């Protein structure tokens, strides 16, 4: 952690809340006075003066342990020198303390050199082949605080190398200096104590328990914080040397948590991604999906435009030819655009502007998933006082509505877990059963499938409470209305958390039928005039556009003739969306060959996130911009392609670059006129299952069959196995035990899965939504709150 980071951690919060006065302590380090908040560790206070004390086990976000002894300094308290050098990572500052580090104390310097020499006696000299070589704290600090040559002439301890502690993390035990950062991270930060130190003495080693494998969603962080090359990522091992990589700060494109990231590229190829430092968001962590799911951009790519010829086959075409055919096909009266939830803010803005100017319609929706009018109205009237991560830190309780943080927005999970661990933060969840994530949070889980709206209404909250509304709450009619009412009644803060990284940005960019960019209501004439002026166009369509489902129905009926599609998997929307798409003229902007490009009339290749610049807006409403990590990519962003296409249609949108779009979005600003009014929707009566029936529930596990996780088998190796959660009494009725197979079916199809008995609502069952052998939307036509028949398979 850098010194800036330290300052950020301690700087006051900008909100109007009155922060408790922090007691300050003044001490002297190497002759310099420094004043720091009470409780600060000596090693941290020294950082403030720019004094770097060498360290390995110390990590500012983990509890002190004092194991490596590298940070020994001399300390004098009340004029009395402590008899032994002290580990500065474990000693809090005291008024008048006098600290002498290696810079001013020969004893401290010798102690540090001594520890360094000891650390190296059993460490192999394999730096030339070690992944960490070149960015290794041991290597660096051995140079700065150690001797050039070892006096050790004995035998080094050796181990068989490496061993897999999971499919994605490898352990070279002889390199390990036993700092316990990885085990402490897994226990204290992730709540997954699946690795521990075993054995003793020099044979001590990090180990796993075979019955509880190291299948933590956050395991990659252990690789990143390992101060030596003991833990390496299976996908990166031996792929590159750090000094051959070009690093670019980037933003994670997976979920709405909003992680700061770093992409490391060598010769045009992303070789690894690391968690960046953002104390206000992901601190220094990320999830394994964010870290390791990036190879989708390396395989199955579309590299040239394609058009469908007379025989119905897709063939490669030149850009001018493809653009001409696309422009002609889209120049019809009735058209629409589906953007998907993964595009950047700038790209979404391009789609929003393209729809209004080039397609002359408000038929645009970013929701490639369940979508309802209630949700669209809810989103159009989202409270503007955005909830932040820091609100979780201060909340008296956090309510999770149809939201599984560990699966759907893992960094929010980490933040809640931090507060649960630190101050026993109360967590209440409305969910069909207690997931592992919610169990770790100690959440009180209200299980009443079908009656969620009533349960929401009966929650007692205060103005210090935080309501986190998952995107899935929209799937329960009336529930979003209940959540809003609850927030209004209690004064609690409400945040909407979409699953995909681009949804919040697309909403703000106007890639939805009832809102223009900046949250301007389509129906508001003043809002339209505002935009007409900014865009220098004569008119903006005044009728709210269709939502995703309505667009698909119109396609089925033949009411829409042409469709522009961004990154959308039609099977995320519905089982038969693809049939409607086949009937229209489809222009697809895509990275990879997919079910959609198979039926598209024109396919225009676009850049992956690492190949372009842009920004994402996270669940807090905070924007994170990034530059292209692959600087010499020949791929064009969606925005650039849309701009070319609009030119070809002679209805230009004037957005040649991301920078131009970004500036235009900023100039437009947010709508400050009258906000739309939200009219609550009523709940519907729950369906009542008969004896052998159940209400199906589901969500997507973090690691599943998602498109952006493809081509990464090591990551997939730690995914949860597909299981159906049923209640104990249902298991008894069916005569099944854990692991036995059951069949879930309806008139459309069936799914067969092994059973896991859980504390689920007796009327319900749960299955993963997009995992191996479990894709209910495709197999059963519905993913949730639908009646299914459950029998022993």
């Amino acid at each position: 952690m850098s010194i800036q980071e330290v300052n950020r951690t301690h700087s006051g919060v900008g909100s109007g809340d009155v922060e408790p006065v922090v007691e300050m302590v003044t001490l002297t380090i190497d002759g310099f006075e420094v004043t720091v908040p009470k409780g600060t560790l000596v090693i941290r206070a020294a950082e403030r003066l720019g004094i770097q004390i060498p360290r390995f086990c110390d990590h500012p976000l983990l509890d002190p342990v004092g194991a490596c002894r590298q940070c020994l300094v001399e300390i004098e308290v009340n004029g009395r020198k402590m008899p032994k050098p002290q580990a500065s990572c474990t000693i809090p500052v005291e008024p008048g303390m006098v600290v002498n580090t290696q810079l001013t104390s020969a004893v401290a310097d010798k102690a540090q050199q001594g520890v360094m020499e000891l650390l190296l006696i059993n460490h192999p000299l394999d730096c030339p082949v070690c992944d960490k070589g070149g960015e290794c704290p041991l290597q660096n600090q051995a140079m700065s605080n150690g001797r050039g040559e070892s006096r050790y002439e004995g035998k080094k301890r050796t181990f068989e190398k490496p061993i897999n502690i999971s499919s994605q993390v490898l352990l070279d035990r002889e390199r390990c200096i036993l700092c316990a950062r990885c085990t402490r991270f897994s226990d204290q930060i992730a709540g997954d104590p699946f690795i521990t130190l075993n054995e003793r003495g020099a044979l001590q080693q990090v180990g796993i328990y075979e019955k509880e494998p190291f299948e933590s969603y956050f395991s990659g962080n252990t690789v990143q914080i390992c101060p030596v090359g003991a833990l390496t990522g299976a996908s990166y091992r031996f792929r590159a040397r750090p000094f051959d990589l070009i690093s670019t700060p980037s933003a994670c494109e997976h979920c709405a948590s909003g992680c700061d990231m770093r992409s490391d590229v060598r010769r045009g190829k992303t070789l690894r991604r690391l968690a960046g430092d953002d104390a206000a968001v992901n601190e220094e962590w990320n999830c394994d999906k964010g870290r390791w799911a990036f190879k989708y951009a390396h395989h199955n790519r579309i590299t040239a435009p394609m058009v469908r010829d007379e025989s119905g086959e897709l063939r490669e075409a030149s850009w001018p030819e493809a653009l001409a055919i696309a422009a002609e096909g889209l120049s019809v009266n009735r058209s629409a655009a589906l953007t998907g939830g993964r595009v950047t803010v700038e790209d979404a803005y391009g789609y929003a502007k393209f729809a209004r100017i080039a397609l002359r319609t408000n038929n645009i929706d970013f929701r490639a998933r369940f979508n309802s009018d209630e949700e669209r109205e809810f989103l159009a009237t989202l409270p503007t006082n955005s909830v932040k991560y820091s609100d979780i830190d201060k909340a008296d309780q956090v309510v999770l509505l149809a939201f599984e943080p560990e699966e759907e927005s893992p960094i929010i999970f980490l933040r809640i877990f931090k507060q649960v661990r630190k101050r026993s933060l109360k967590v209440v969840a409305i969910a069909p059963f207690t997931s592992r994530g919610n169990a770790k949070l100690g959440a009180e889980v209200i299980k009443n499938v079908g009656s969620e709206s009533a349960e929401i209404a009966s929650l007692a909250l205060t103005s210090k409470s935080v309501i986190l509304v998952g995107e899935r709450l929209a799937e329960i009619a009336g529930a979003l209305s209940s959540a809003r009412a609850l927030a209004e009644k209690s004064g609690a803060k409400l945040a909407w958390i979409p699953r995909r990284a681009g949804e919040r940005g697309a909403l703000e960019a106007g890639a939805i039928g009832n809102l223009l960019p900046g949250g301007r209501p389509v129906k508001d004439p003043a809002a339209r005039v505002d935009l007409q002026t900014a865009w220098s166009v004569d008119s903006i369509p005044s009728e709210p556009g269709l939502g995703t489902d309505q667009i698909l129905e119109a396609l089925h009926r033949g009411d829409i003739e042409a469709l522009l599609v961004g990154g959308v998997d039609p099977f995320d929307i519905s089982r038969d969306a693809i049939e409607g798409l086949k009937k229209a003229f489809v222009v697809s902007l895509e990275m990879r060959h997919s079910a959609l490009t198979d039926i598209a009339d024109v396919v225009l290749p676009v850049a992956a996130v690492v190949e372009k610049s842009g920004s994402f807006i996270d669940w807090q409403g905070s924007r994170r911009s990034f530059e292209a990590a692959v600087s010499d990519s020949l791929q064009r962003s969606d925005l650039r392609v849309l701009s070319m296409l609009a030119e070809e249609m002679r209805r230009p949108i004037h957005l040649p670059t991301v920078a131009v779009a970004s500036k235009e979005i900023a100039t437009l600003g947010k709508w400050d006129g009258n906000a739309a009014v939200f009219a609550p929707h009523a709940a519907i009566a729950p369906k009542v299952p008969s004896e052998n029936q159940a209400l199906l529930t589901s969500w997507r596990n973090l690691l599943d069959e998602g498109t952006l996780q493809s081509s990464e088998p090591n990551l997939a190796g730690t995914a949860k196995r597909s299981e159906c959660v049923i209640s104990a009494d249902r298991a008894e009725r069916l005569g099944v035990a854990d692991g036995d197979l059951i069949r879930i079916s309806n008139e459309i199809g069936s799914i067969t899965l092994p059973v896991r008995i859980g504390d689920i609502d007796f009327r319900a069952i749960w299955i993963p939504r997009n995992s191996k052998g479990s894709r209910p939307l495709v197999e059963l036509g519905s993913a949730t709150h639908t009646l299914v028949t459950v029998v022993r398979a």
Partner: protein
Amino acid sequence: MSALTPVLSAFWDQKDSFTIVGYKRNGGYQAVEKALSMEPDAIIQLVKDSGLRGRGGAGFPTGMKWGFIPQGDNKEHYLVVNADESEPGTCKDTPLLLANPHVLIEGVIIASYAIRANHAFIYIRGEVTHVIRRVQQAIEDAYKDGLLGKNIRGKGFDLELLLHVGAGAYICGEETALLDSLEGFRGQPRLRPPFPAIAGLYARPTVVNNVESIASVPSIIDKGAEWFASMGTEKSKGYTLYSLSGHVKNPGQFEAPLGITLRELIDMAGGIRAGHRLKFWTPGGSSTPMFTDAHLDTPLDYEGVAAAGSTLGTKALQIFDDTTCVVRAVLRWTEFYKHESCGKCTPCREGTWWLVQALKNLENGEGKPEDLDKLLDLCDNIMGRSFCAFADGAASPIISSLQYFRDEYLEHLSTGGCPFDPAASTLFEGVGVR
């Protein structure tokens, strides 16, 4: 000339000394009756007044330790007895528990009452099966007698006493590692603060005391602080168990006032092995810097031993005569420390790994005289640099042996091997075929 003052060991020669009947016949469990009629704070004061200091090695005043337990905090308090005796040479708690387990139980009841603990634990070394059985039986007998459990002796005091058998790790004698082990974790020392008195077992205020410390309490209650303080020296009061082992004629436990000298103790033990003379000895187990025959008249109390450059430790007096190779003895101890290093911190874990190899080379006569300076420098990088005090114990015998016997190390190097006959130091010397 000091005389023996048998208190804890007074009745060890009786056949049934370990039974509740035998213990009571000799006046056992009378102190409990007396203590339960006293105010708990008065007991703490009495123990403070007696000057009793921890017999586990560090010599911290026992009454003061009890006084650190916050009172009226509405939290559970715990008493934990450290019976994980594992220091090479230390052998006082094991015979005490074998011969007189009830004196410990009586002490536990009184100490728990004083610190307001309703749960007490004895953490005992797993290897001493026979002792475990006796202590377990003694606990059961005490329960049957109403000395443990609910409403002890009708005085409204409840106490549950549990015997926990460790899995055999030297580190678990370190009090915080012991607590981790007792909680079911791997035994590794904890970061302090918080100290056990504030957050010990299960993060509750906890007193951790050595067996002998607690076992000394009933006699103090019974006979008073003044009686106890009348023995020993100015700052080291009372009687204690000295364990003589090695090359003396009659090794064993000698219960005497603090401040007695080794010369006196050796006399009591019948002298050094016939035909030999004292070469070196440890005042308190292998981790205390060794002494030589120059220290025969050093008073064996906390201050006297410290002034001579060592520590009283566990009063485990290991006696080595002139047949013993000091390099070899130190190597054996170092091998023990390497084997027992818990691995948590670098100096101990890596340092003992290196030390063993360095000492093996020296014992084999390999190396240069400068290697002795390197060895000392290495010890300097281990001593006082580790997480807990155990690495200091590993470095101590090496540093002190080099202080007194540097020439013997050099002799190894000049002769290219060990100048001693290892069989000569054994008790079976001359018996059978080598």
